[in-house]
């Protein structure tokens, strides 16, 4: 199983942070998922929860049950010694409608000016890629999507906005994502989706999981309004293709 050189760091009183090489890579993502899967399967009673995003894995443990040094040693042993077959995870592709009208995509003119490409090109580039879900975090249902075209990379705002609307589709650094609820945020907003990525009313509040893929498709303001009505009436189901 051991493929990468990992760094183990204490994170406060009762958490350990494990870092893979800090790059966006599907190989790393698969390796983290595998490691996380193996740890979960061992059902270690002193582990409270595990989550990962991109190239980092966080393990929160009960510090009254195990010491940091012992847990660190144990995790290194598991990663280096345990031979585990690679899992073939199902990779669903989710199709997400986005209205890129500048009424929603308030930062499109700014990005267009800064990146010296037209708004139309930003939209066509953003909606033609398949994005890999590298983690769910930041907020309930916030998907970290990898695979943003280099043409659209742009550094985060120096000071985050205090209020970004629910459904806002945005770009931050080399990442793109959807804000699942009203929240503060430091990314540049390029559009908005009417669908809810996270809905507590559902048995599974978040359908999209790490390893899945996401594809955006542009819709008009009229289509946005009609989808909103369908969603309100409970008639809309998120579309997915392939396994």
């Amino acid at each position, binding site marked *: 199983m051991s493929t990468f050189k990992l760094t183990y760091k204490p994170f406060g009183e009762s958490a350990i*942070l494990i870092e893979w090489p*800090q790059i966006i890579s599907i190989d790393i993502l698969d390796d983290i998922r595998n490691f996380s899967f193996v740890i979960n399967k061992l059902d270690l009673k002193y582990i409270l929860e595990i989550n990962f995003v991109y190239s980092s894995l966080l393990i929160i443990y009960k510090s009254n049950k195990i010491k940091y040094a012992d847990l660190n040693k144990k995790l290194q042993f598991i990663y280096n010694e345990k031979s585990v077959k690679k899992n073939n995870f199902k990779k669903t592709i989710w199709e997400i409608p986005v209205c890129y009208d500048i009424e929603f995509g308030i930062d499109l003119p700014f990005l267009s000016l800064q990146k010296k490409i037209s708004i139309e090109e930003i939209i066509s580039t953003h909606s033609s890629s398949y994005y890999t879900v590298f983690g769910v975090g930041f907020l309930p249902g916030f998907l970290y999507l990898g695979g943003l075209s280099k043409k659209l990379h742009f550094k985060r705002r120096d000071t985050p906005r205090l209020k970004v609307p629910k459904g806002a589709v945005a770009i931050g650094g080399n990442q793109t994502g959807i804000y699942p609820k009203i929240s503060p945020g430091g990314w540049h907003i390029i559009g908005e989706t009417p669908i809810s990525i996270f809905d*507590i009313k559902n048995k599974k509040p978040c359908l999209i999981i790490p390893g899945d893929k996401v594809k955006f498709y542009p819709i008009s303001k009229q289509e946005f309004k009609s989808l909103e009505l369908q969603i309100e009436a409970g008639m809309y189901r998120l579309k997915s293709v392939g396994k």
Partner: protein
Amino acid sequence: MIKVIQAGLYTSIQDIGRFGYRNIGVPTSGTMDSISANFANALLNNNSNDAVLEITMLGPKLEFTTPTVIIITGAEMSSKLNNISITNYKKYSIKKGDILSFGELKKGLRCYLAVKGGFKTSKVLKSRSFYNGITSKDSFKKHDIILYDSYADDINTFNSAIKNTTLFFETKVLEVYKGPDFNLFTLEEQQKICSNKYTVSNLMNRMGYRIKETIIKHNKSILTSPVLPGTVQLTPSGQLIILMKDAQTTGGYPRILQLTEKSIAILAQKKEGDTFNFLLI
């Protein structure tokens, strides 16, 4: 149950928090000052995970419709039972129709009201802690009701208040660990971060506290990685954001320090203009 006559500034149900859902981005939540909340539950012989009412800055006015025993811990907010002043850290028997109200904030920012057996609002994802988008509300409004199991026991005759001349949260020192990204900064910068004096800004809530001072402007960006309640982030504009219980589960600003649970509780009792410094442990 309790009828909310006035809601106060921000009054919510909290327990020890929501664990096991960080992988779909659900924050821990739970009591901001877990030390005071635990104290309240312990003094009532409740379970440590029983839900309490977290009351922020400006307290509510509440009417009890069934008997119970209550205790208030944490911030001193001039609480009154049927218009007669009552003391924190002391148990009071409650009868049907009793009115609990709050007045001037004297010490701290958040107080905890516990009832015998804990509040029985519904659990969502295994916790009663309010969090916008998970529970149906994030704070109480006028006319809301708050459920608990009635409990009849006259305890007033044999209990006296614990004398708290100095409360644990009055210290200005927050004990911290080095964060995972502390070493991205030079020795000189690290020393500046650790020795500076900080002031709480007006941008502070259950998600985080933004700090007034600008210390080190930088352009160090990290690949988004997990964060925790108590994580101290340094934004490129040079300001600290200290994440609190409702904070996001991941972030992209360098994580320079990490507060202990006790330091989170101390900071939770600080308000705009209060100052503090860090002590690296």
